[in-house]
């Protein structure tokens, strides 16, 4: 009995320690986002804003692109927020549709050969900086630079490996007898997909979509290369902020960070159940 109490104590002590490690940076960002400029850097640091304010949010969330004030440049996030949302959603949708169809075709018919999923994985292994240099030249000549289509195309390609590997796990879980039975009863292949395979892989599709969405929502390097003034995502805005003000504009930046974090976290918590199912990548014995 005593031993069990000890085990529980040690377990909670370790888990609480990691909870603190996880939460402090997130808390600090929220904390700073509600502070006036005088409180951003103090000693000792303030763990609660003395006079909480929404002015940081108001500054970055007003329409327009940028204002100069007292030698500081404040960037606006409404446009980048929309651009990020649009590119991340569109690319995740297309990548999930294409990638899971491909994973299905490979799992059922062996299309593309035994090694196809492995060769797709090499896309993900290439550091994006390698393609960044020629891509700029390439996109300039195709008039794809600084367009939604250009960025979305690249994101689809870089997301495909994750989609294929995650969806393989779910598709291999669908009993093929069930599909054969439906075929025998006269269902078309597309009917089998929509009525048998789709319902059984929904949680996989949801988890994959979210993961790929986060990847593209967060991507910095390629967005920095392939966009300029027309398209501008959230990570780029944050990076611009850091360079124009030498990283001293803590409040508005914290507000941007909070704005960029909240939607994804909310989405993640909604589908947490699916997430835990989706990450064994088909590598467990049935």
């Amino acid at each position, binding site marked *: 009995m005593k031993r069990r109490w000890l085990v*529980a104590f040690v377990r*909670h002590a370790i*888990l609480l320690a*990691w*909870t603190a*490690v*996880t939460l402090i*940076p997130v808390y*600090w*960002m929220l904390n700073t986002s509600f502070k006036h400029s005088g409180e951003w*850097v103090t*000693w*000792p640091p303030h*763990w609660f804003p003395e006079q909480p304010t929404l002015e940081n949010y108001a500054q970055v969330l007003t329409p327009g692109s940028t204002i100069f004030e007292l030698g500081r440049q404040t960037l606006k996030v409404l446009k980048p927020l929309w651009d990020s949302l649009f590119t991340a959603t569109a690319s995740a949708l297309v990548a999930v549709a294409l990638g899971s*169809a*491909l994973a*299905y*075709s490979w799992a059922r018919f062996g*299309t593309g050969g035994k*090694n196809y999923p492995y060769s797709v*994985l*090499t896309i*993900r292994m*290439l*550091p*994006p*900086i*390698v*393609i*960044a*240099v020629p891509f700029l*030249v*390439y996109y300039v000549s195709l008039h794809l630079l600084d367009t939604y289509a250009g960025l979305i*195309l*690249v994101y689809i390609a870089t997301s495909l490996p994750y989609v294929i590997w995650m969806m393989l796990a779910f598709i291999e879980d669908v009993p093929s007898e069930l599909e054969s039975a439906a075929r025998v009863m006269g269902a*078309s292949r597309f009917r089998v997909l929509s009525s048998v395979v789709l319902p059984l892989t929904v949680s996989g599709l949801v988890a994959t979509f979210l993961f790929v969405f*986060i990847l593209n*929502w*967060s991507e*910095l390097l390629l967005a920095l290369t392939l966009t300029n003034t027309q398209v501008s995502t959230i*990570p780029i805005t*944050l990076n611009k902020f*850091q360079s124009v003000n030498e*990283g001293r504009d*803590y409040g508005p930046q914290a507000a941007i*960070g909070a704005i*960029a*974090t909240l939607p*994804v*976290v909310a989405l*993640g918590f909604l589908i947490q159940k699916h*997430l*835990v*199912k*989706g*990450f*064994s990548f*088909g*590598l467990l*014995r049935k």
Partner: protein
Amino acid sequence: MPAARRAALSWLEREQVFKWLPFVPVQALLVFLLLPFVLLVYLSLVSWRITRGVWWHAPFVGAANFAGAVQDERFVWAVIRTFGFAAAAVPLELGLGFGLALLCRERFRGRRFYTTLFLLPMMIVPAVVGYDLSMLLIDQGPLNQILSLLAGRPVTVRWISDYRMAKAAIVGADVWQWTSLVFLIVLSGFAGLPPDPIRAARAMGASRWQIFRYVELPLLKPVLAIALVLRSMEALKIFDYPVLLTEGGPGNSTETIAVYLWRVGWDFTRVSDAAAMSLILMVVVVMYTVIAIHILRRERRQLAEEAAR
């Protein structure tokens, strides 16, 4: 239903057509993205800078760019440094992620609270993480305050301006964010473990440690392998943390491959040098990839063999 449409549908239904349907757009996309690689090779063989005319007029210089890259100490150090970051961060992430998942696998009061919280870091934009840590790590920041409280005397660690501490900060940022992904992968591995072998082992009188060591761990090995492959792949690309946290400094002490290539290509406009370095990097990555894929294929083949038995 019009006859033409029915004919089209039945054509799409044929196995030989149906199975290739998703491959056509994917392959088209891959070919579309392959062309820049041809361009990359071309650019690495000529001498071109963004500031110097159009690229197809640039003079051919052969392997000179490659020779220059190998002799560029800053490049060589960036490669070594990046592998060093990966070698420091990935084992920490695997160890912490595995340990935390081990503690969270069984039902207990508060389990849902912990698992929910531990997934938080992977959902945050890496650029935001880099920026966020730059606030925490300033000399008069909350981290030094906490350390002072723990030590009972004023402690000022110069996280950003000391070159060793700056390196630790980059590794710390990666570990903070990506332990959560390893945690998730291992947790979903534990959740997917087949109950029968474990029950059988328990019936035969195996202790909890024996079940873990000889039944569960071997079953989990493939899951750990993919966590290792994914994380080391991504760790070699580190870009966001140095850019937002240390700007590669102090000096070049946190300049990773991606950051240095970015500077060579855009800030110094030496596009051809950057192209040559990119190709060298590709060779290194391809070698690494071959090893990683070999590991994954072996794990999947073993699973298939066991399933067939």
